[in-house]
């Protein structure tokens, strides 16, 4: 930001300039640290996870049986578990998240906005174990009673809580992109005789389309990566979901599998390598989601803060 400022007149002491140079070096190093960390994370996942491919034949790895004690390392049920829980979460979180974002950006009076935004931030900051506890003690017994399930610990319970976790992300990114729609668009629509509702629905929302899509993607990205809540409430049965009905049965996600089993495996065993391999899969999913989303964000020249928080 300061590149357009002419350099200052050099003072006499040279040690002074040395320290200035050192500081500049340190700051550049800090700047590149994020790149180094992403590379390190990828390197360690690869070095611990890739041996899997030599130890487990591909057709066993992509099979439907996960039973590590007897050396069945089929990761498809875990992938399926993650997908079905996330799908459920997306179905719940999308309308609620986008609806709330529209409310905050377009309809809410100032006081309501000032009240809603910090509350949504609080939801984003709730520790996932606390939500998990509520899931175990309050949500799942009630779901079981209401729907007459054999157990309350199902993929659906996980979906509801994951929705709560991804809603703050969806709201803040979607609200940002609605805010970015120029005021003149709305004025033009209103001047042509459209109602406020028509303006929102046919002008503002379509104009913010790509941002809203990004919001949903980032929300889904958060849901796939969430660990503790799903581990606590989904019942942890590695069953391959074959139909949507499985949403109401126990499931097990990739993240929960790593969290639950890593503590008990021997370092360097096949099981250990497979768990890191699942880590690679998760890393790649988040990479795709975030790079795609950031491409949209870069185009819109938006700040990265909202998608981060």
């Amino acid at each position: 930001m300061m590149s357009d400022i002419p350099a200052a007149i050099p003072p006499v002491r040279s040690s002074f300039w040395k320290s200035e140079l050192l500081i500049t070096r340190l700051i550049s190093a800090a700047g590149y640290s994020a790149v180094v960390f992403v590379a390190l994370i990828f390197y360690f996942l690869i070095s611990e996870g890739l041996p899997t491919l030599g130890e487990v034949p591909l057709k066993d790895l992509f099979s439907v049986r996960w039973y590590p004690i007897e050396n069945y390392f089929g990761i498809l049920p875990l992938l399926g578990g993650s997908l079905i829980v996330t799908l459920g979460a997306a179905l719940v979180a999308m309308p609620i998240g986008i609806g709330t974002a529209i409310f905050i950006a377009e309809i809410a009076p100032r006081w309501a906005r000032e009240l809603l935004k910090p509350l949504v931030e609080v939801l984003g900051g709730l520790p996932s174990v606390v939500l998990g506890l509520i899931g175990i003690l309050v949500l799942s017994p009630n779901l079981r009673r209401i729907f007459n399930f054999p157990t309350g610990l199902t993929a659906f319970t996980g979906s509801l809580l994951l929705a709560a976790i991804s809603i703050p992300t969806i709201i803040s990114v979607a609200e940002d992109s609605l805010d970015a729609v120029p005021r003149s668009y709305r004025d033009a629509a209103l001047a042509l005789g459209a109602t406020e509702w028509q303006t929102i629905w046919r002008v503002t929302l379509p104009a913010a389309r790509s941002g809203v899509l990004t919001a949903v993607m980032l929300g889904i990205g958060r849901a796939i990566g969430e660990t503790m809540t799903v581990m606590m409430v989904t019942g942890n049965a590695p069953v391959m979901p074959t139909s949507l009905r499985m949403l109401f049965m126990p499931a097990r996600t990739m993240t929960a599998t790593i969290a639950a089993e890593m503590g008990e495996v021997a370092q360097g065993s096949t099981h250990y390598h497979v768990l890191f391999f699942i880590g690679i899969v998760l890393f790649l999913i988040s990479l795709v989601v975030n790079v795609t989303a950031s491409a949209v964000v870069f185009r819109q020249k938006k700040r990265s803060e909202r998608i981060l928080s």
Partner: protein
Amino acid sequence: MTTPQPAENPGSLLSKPSGFSTHKKSSQRNLTQRLGFGLLTLIALGTVAPIVLVIGYIVVKGSPAISWEFLTALPSDGMRAGGILPAIVGTFYLTLGTAIFSVPLGIGAAIYLAEYATENRWTRLIRIAIINLAGIPSVVYGLFGLGLFVLFLHFGTSILAGSLTLSIMTLPVIISTAEEAIRAVPQSFRVVSVSLGATRWQTIRRIVLHESLPGILTGVILGLERAAGETAPILFTVAAFFLPRLPNSPLDATMALPYHLFVISTQVPGMPVKIQYGTALVLLSFVLGMNLLATVIRSRARARRQW
């Protein structure tokens, strides 16, 4: 022919100027609008009500468990009785350790991005890396911490390994909020400082950082709040299932509040519900306290800002 209909606003919901309606089906359009706005209001309420309910519920159910003993005693009877002091202390140390590593690095990176970097391919790479760091699932951070800090660098399961893992996870939040705060400082401040003979670093340290401090602080606290509440990254790097003593050095393993809450709500049969809610309340107070602090700093800075 054009008749303004200010009455079409549903009550006080609208603060913006209303549209004009001339259509012959205008009453139907108004009805649609009223229904639509009502629906969105309901949805927004549906988002907020559970948050308030959950927090209220935990406060109500958890406060009977809170006592001096609960906060200051070691757990006993297989965690079914006694206090949670080691978990509180552990989380405190972890948050402190995370701050030690992530704050200088994060602010440094933010200064680089806001003050030094030009918009080129490398800077873009840094930004993509930051966005990726923010998106990586917490349990993958756990795997990474296990691979690098615990095993490769032989830190063992320790506060050091856990703090480093949490630091990297916290970094993107701190960088992006700090960068935004630094960029918000008006350019004229820098020009004046440099024209008075200050070097670039003197300008940054004495002028830019001074002015952007509240914004940076807000970001730091929000980042640390997340670190304090996380469980997955510390599962394999720090957390002790049951360790009824206080840690002596950064290389000690420790109990931590979020992991302890996980343990007592899923792994210990016959756990009194009161203690579960009590622990949740302590963790929640810790996290929400930090959130509140950040909000207060932000709004005070906003009110006081001269530019």
